[in-house]
């Protein structure tokens, strides 16, 4: 497909550190992380539970604020932006798939997929959303609410939503964590297929070694530090 590797990485961090203070002590969750993700790559961040994987993902997306360090996303130093500007950048550049799907219970499958399109002001949101749901095999579930869908179906909706705005970078946080293994495999297949079709860069957080092997590169985290 039209994957094009450009000089500047689509995502890079510099000395990214996240600390949390409690009454007694200061916990360092992430310590001075430097990493690069180039366009078109599929990178797996792996590590044991509590190693800081999800915190790192959150910082990469600008969903959380680091104690120090930088994140450059699509050429922009995201922590120089305010919250609204970061949100706008996310809407334009990023797609998300979460372990617990994170669909809005008030909205139907179709409306959930339309949401990022409408937020971005896309005019034919409904048509695009329908096409995507069709693509993930939910053509007959358009008007179902999340609670009327199975876990696998919910994750399909979430994947359709993630690809709706044709993001440059897809962030996935343990996307199969809440699914049985058979469904998990189907979801992963779907995600990689769409990733290829859209030429999206993928950053996948998982503790599943087998899954991580499907990515072109693995970054290992332990105790908040990168171990290459």
């Amino acid at each position, binding site marked *: 497909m039209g994957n094009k590797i450009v000089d500047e990485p689509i995502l890079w961090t510099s000395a990214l550190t996240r600390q949390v203070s409690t009454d007694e002590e200061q916990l360092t969750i992430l310590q001075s992380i430097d990493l690069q993700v180039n366009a078109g790559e599929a990178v797996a961040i792996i590590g044991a539970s509590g190693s800081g994987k*999800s*915190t790192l993902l*959150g910082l990469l*997306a600008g*969903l*959380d*604020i680091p104690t120090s360090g930088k994140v450059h996303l699509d050429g922009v130093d995201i922590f120089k932006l305010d*919250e*609204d500007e970061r*949100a*706008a*950048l*996310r*809407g*334009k550049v*990023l797609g*998300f798939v*979460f*372990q*617990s799907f*994170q*669909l*809005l*219970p*008030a*909205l139907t499958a179709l*409306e959930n997929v339309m*949401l*990022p399109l*409408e*937020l*971005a002001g896309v005019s034919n949101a409904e048509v695009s959303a329908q096409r995507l749901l069709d693509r993930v095999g939910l053509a007959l579930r358009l008007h179902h*609410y999340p*609670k009327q869908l199975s876990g696998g179906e919910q994750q399909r909706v979430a994947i359709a*939503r993630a690809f709706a*705005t044709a993001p440059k970078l897809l962030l996935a946080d343990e996307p199969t964590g809440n699914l049985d293994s058979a469904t998990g495999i189907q979801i992963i297949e779907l995600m990689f297929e769409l990733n290829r079709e859209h030429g999206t860069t993928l950053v996948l957080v998982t503790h599943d070694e087998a899954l991580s092997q499907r990515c072109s590169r693995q970054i290992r985290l332990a105790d908040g530090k990168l171990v290459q």
Partner: protein
Amino acid sequence: MNFFKLSFLMLRRDLRAGELNVLVLALVIAVSGMTTVGFFADRVEMALSSESNQLLGADLLVISSHPLAESYREQAQKFDLKTSTVTKFPSMVFNGEASQLVEIKAVTDGYPLRGKLYLGGTRESPQNRVANMIPEPGTIWVDEKLMVRLNLKKGDLLEIGSTQLAVSELIIREPDHSVGFMNMRPHVLISAADLPATDLIQQGSRITYRLLVAGEARNVERYRSWIEQRLTTAERIEGIRDARPEIKAALERAEKFLSLAALASVILAAAAISLAVRRFTLRHLDGCAIMRSLGASQAGLSQMYLLYFVTLGVVASAIGCLLGFGTQEILTIWLTDLTETALPWPSWLPAIHGMLIGMVLLLGFALPPILNLRSVPALRVLRRDIGRPNAHSLIGYLSGLAALSFLFIWQAEDLQLGLYFVAGFIIAIVVFGLLGWLLVRMLSGLRHQAGGAWRYGLASIHRRTISSLVQAVSLGLGLMALLVLTLIQDDLIEDWSTKLPPDMPNHFLVSIQSDQLQPLEAFFSRHDIDQPSVYPMVRGRLTEINGEAVSPDDYTADAHAERHIRREFNLSWASDLSDDNQIVNGAWWGNASIEEAEISFEEGLAKTIGVKLGDRLTYDIAGSPFSAKITSLRKVDWDTFRVNFFVIVSPGFLEGYPVSYVTSFYVPPAKTAMIHELVREFPNILVVDVAVVINQVQQMIGQVSQAIEFVFLFTLLAGFVVLYAAIASTQDERIYEAAIFRTLGAKREQLTRAWAAEFAILGGLAGLFASAGASALGYAVGHYVLHLNYTVNPWIWVTGIFVGVIGVLVAGMMGTRSTLTTPPLLTLRKIG
């Protein structure tokens, strides 16, 4: 496992973490609002009765035709009450050759115990002044009528029985001056010490003995119950409620207004608590699931939560009571110049009420849904999507409704008013619920046509249909209570005050003779006074009902009825029914000539003496019998202070009997001098000045209105808590929504718009419900309870919907502001 300890640990943790803020706030404000109302109403009520008691000259009168037992007075003193006695009888007094029948009052020290006795000014200080003692032995105080009629001046010797007393003061106004038509002779006041010397106390004299009692309301009540068991048939007691119908009506209406205000805060509290409990239940699901998975029994969980809530209720209600006591003190200080007398100290009853109200409200609304938590499946530990119990349990609402109904009826202290509220409340909830459901369905249909923000607003409301309805109905009820209290209360009070127009008759003329009608008319024209209607009056004693003789002895059980039978009735005739009379049963005679005399009887008195439609009454009029059938029962509006009769006869039957006339008219303050002239020109006519009573009633209305307005501030505060609770109850869902929106790239403004749309729709629904409910309630309360012709104010709809939309919108946006600044990851982790 020690659930006792666990319960306290959990309560402490939740309190510290602020989990119970809404619940505690709702309960504290509810209870403090209620107890403020309670304490204050208690004091105002006591003050009101004590002010009205000024018209009696005491808090309680013991009246008898025989000398009263000394033990009555001693017992009153034992109860720490002040006493005084009045011996009252009619007698002739002489100034040389001139004589006049007067009402003599012989009083002991302390008279009057309530109210003030005003005396005329002296040459040195022409101002009227308040008497601070009773007449000295050897002196007599006389009123203006007697001064005029006997042409007296100070220092003249007045012959009274076998003694002579020197006129020393002019009585301007007595507190216990009777307004009835029976005692309109001139009045004189003497010291009881002079009584024996008059030799007037003889067998057969028409003497009334009165013991005046006054003191703290509680002691008066104790004394009242003590003496009620000892009264002989010749004795009766009279408090303000037993006395004048117009004061009684005003007092009862005042009490109803206050309980109305109190009821409004009950509704608000219930709504707030019910909303807060929903959030509590959702937040405690996981904890319960974990405890269940660790082996906690259902009974154990129930015990723990019961203990948790009882403790919470007791603590919050106690804080509420303390706050309520404090605020009513502030209120009292603020309002001190409102009441002439210092407000009496409140009783402890409102505090006990407050604790009970707090517990009933909390347990009634919170317990059933919270006890439901015990049935959370332990499996929820593994799968968070299961075991989400229905946060709106039917049982919960039913038990809440039952608790509320109980409180309504109890608070109203009036079964009818309470039942009206309960019925209105249930109907409102059902109608609002159904209407709301339909509206939500209709609106959701529109969401595919609606643009961005509206779509998400509508989607949120639709997804949480039940929650949204509960929110809209709670807010609607709260807003309804506020609307009722502001707009409708203003209207009702206005309706009530307008019933006392500034030119309301303040003088009555009685015993006008037929040949005086024309000269009187001329007199009024001369003084530029509108000709008042003149009513004929024939006096007759009721002797038979349906052919059976009646005697006062048949009515010994009811002193009020007995008095009416003993006295002569004032019978009048009229061809038209006046405005302040309303036929409630039977029919008024038209203009058609009728063969046989008919009677229209006042319904209250008919009940008292036990006569009904169709009964034939026989009166003894000046020695000859007059008989007629009751063909209608009338309700009389005694508030108007116009001439009214218990018994009206169809025209053409009484004209032959000895007749006199009675009228009432308004004398502007500038023209009071004409009354002197009237008395000189028509010496036989009795002039009764009711200005004092009217002033008292008007003042009372003013004070009650102010008190209600203050109480309304609490209702308003409670209204804000409902609003806060309503918004907080969906806060968690909103925080989650915000996180997803933000993650997907929504700008703050986009999210704000979506929520604003939701809040506006919710507020609009609440406003609609509130306006509809307030109109219906105002009409019902005005019409059926307060008996006012209340017309629904169309502005209520505009105000209701506007206040609903703006209020919920502003409060909602303020309440959700913090969620907009929370980093999304934090939320997604916490909830996800």
